[in-house]
């Protein structure tokens, strides 16, 4: 039997880097315009992740937590194999088999005829989650509700020993900055709660202004969300630039200077030729009509759609 020889390490690095680079550039080509290459690479990535995920889920989750447990008594059976194992330990086997069958009903979500079977595991999960949500919400929010009641005049000790213990008779002083912080915190909570109080009209000037303050504070919060989202998206871009700079660009160096320079020119050439082909195709293509069951195709249909 012929054994497939693994690629040399330098070739592996080169292939990995180029595959990565092509995928990154194809995905980012969407920033210019939607195109077939982007969609092809996207679908390939989804397919690969799904296939890989299936194997990993079986090996690391379903295997050890269900299959191995179901056949766990097999090792204790000396002769007779599968049938003897089931015969000797029918209850544990049937219990795990039953759970497996119930679990597999999830997949009937893709069948119109047997969709009702999928409702069994969904119902079990809904019931369990509905029960646990009380505990989850209570325990998660309790400490935050307690923390919301803060003193508007915060105090601190005047002096402490290196161990953190206060000096004897050091007394307490008003901590100005902590007090201001607490005031903003408490006013913020009150204002936002007033904003979300819809049981009466916000016609009273005090209520109206407090709700207005609440709206401003919410806007500030959304600004924070937006800023942090930009940081996340920027980091994703940087990750790809870092890959291109630190892994893709130096990958050919392992093959020597000449190969490195040649591959750089080939890469640049491919980019230029690809760009030219795309530009020519883009300029020569026929303008396509938008398609879809409700899309007006004739001028009369368009007029009728506008009138509607």
């Amino acid at each position: 039997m012929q054994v497939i020889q693994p690629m040399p390490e330098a070739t592996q690095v080169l292939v990995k880097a180029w595959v990565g680079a092509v995928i990154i550039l194809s995905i980012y080509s969407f920033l210019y315009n939607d195109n077939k290459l982007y969609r092809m690479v996207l679908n390939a990535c989804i397919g690969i992740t799904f296939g890989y995920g299936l194997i990993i889920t079986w090996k690391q989750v379903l295997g050890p937590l269900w299959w191995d447990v179901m056949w766990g008594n097999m090792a204790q059976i000396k002769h007779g194999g599968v049938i003897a194992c089931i015969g000797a330990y029918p209850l544990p086997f049937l219990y795990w088999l039953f759970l497996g069958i119930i679990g597999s009903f999830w997949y009937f979500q893709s069948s119109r005829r047997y969709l009702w079977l999928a409702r069994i595991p969904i119902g079990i999960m809904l019931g369990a989650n509905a029960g646990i949500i009380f505990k989850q919400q209570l325990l998660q929010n309790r400490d935050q509700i307690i923390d919301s009641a803060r003193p508007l005049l915060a105090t601190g000790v005047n002096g402490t020993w290196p161990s953190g213990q206060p000096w004897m008779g050091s007394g307490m002083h008003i901590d100005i900055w902590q007090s201001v912080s607490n005031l903003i915190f408490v006013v913020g909570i009150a204002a936002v709660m007033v904003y979300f109080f819809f049981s009466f009209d916000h016609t009273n000037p005090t209520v109206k202004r407090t709700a207005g303050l609440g709206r401003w504070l919410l806007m500030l919060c959304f600004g924070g969300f937006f800023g942090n989202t930009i940081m996340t998206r920027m980091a994703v871009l940087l990750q790809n630039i870092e890959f291109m700079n630190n892994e893709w660009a130096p990958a050919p160096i392992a093959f020597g200077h000449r190969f490195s320079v040649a591959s750089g020119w080939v890469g640049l050439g491919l980019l230029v030729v690809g760009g030219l082909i795309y530009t020519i195709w883009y300029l020569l293509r026929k303008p396509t009509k938008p398609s879809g069951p409700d899309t007006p195709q004739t001028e009369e249909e368009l007029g009728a759609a506008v009138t509607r």
Partner: protein
Amino acid sequence: MLDFLARLQTIDRRWIYLFVAVACALPFYVNTEVKVYVFPETQMFFDSVQAVKTENDRIAANNVKLAAQNKPTVREKVILLDSPWGPGSLAENKGQDEAVFEHCLRERIPLIIMALDGDVNAPRYIDDIIENLQKRCPELRDRKYGVDWVNLGITKTDWMAMMQMAKDFKKQLKQDSKGTSTTDYEKLPIMKKIDNINDVGLLICINGWPNENYVPFIHQQYGTKLAFGGCGMSSTYLYRFIPSGQICGFLVSTRAAAEYDTLIHRELLHDETTAIHANYGSKLIVPLAYGHLVIILAIVLGNIGYFATQRKRRAG
């Protein structure tokens, strides 16, 4: 002039993408450094990890006395790290993981890593990060898999898994990512140190959006110390757990990875000069700052354009 300013609002978005890309790429070629200031929540995170080391040192000293008296010794605490992130948040979580791994391996704090409801790539990323870390830091090459750390791979079912792990850890995680049984103590001696949640000195969840269910089901129920590492997007929502004391540290995005790296160099290695560009987060912090500057500039220009358009409309 008003016409020119009004046009600022209609700049094609693709030009902005290009400017951002150039601004982000430039620092990779032009050597630039920025001073990294450590935020309090990152310092708290670092201190919490260090506190496990201090506790383990105390336990070890006490065990010597107990052994001399022929009394049973006490097990040292482990750090349980849930790291289920995938490619989507690699840029932010990789540096955070790298910094935490480095801290634990340097201080020889037993580290048990898993991926609860994780991305299928998560176990591979964990192995890659530790492999690269050992390549980068020769002094960490004597740390062994199964002795100093273990990668238990993926497990599923969220809060149900948490409750099971808290009571009987090895019943939920029966094998590591390579298929070795967690009760095979010859290959994985580190697993002797954990039976349930009482053996965990600090539970860390590093993910794009860290699993909040650890708060009610682990921290509130068992009192286990908890720390999060997340992407920037999640931080605005999850900061609320800090003032209430439900989490004892929070790593926010790439910048926190760079801050943690600075802390490792400053407090463990007593060396500030090598802090830049050592960790994945430190590599990205300068380009990130440049990218942010372009975005701020774009916002300012957009607003100038908006006010110019308004003024033009009023002028008729």
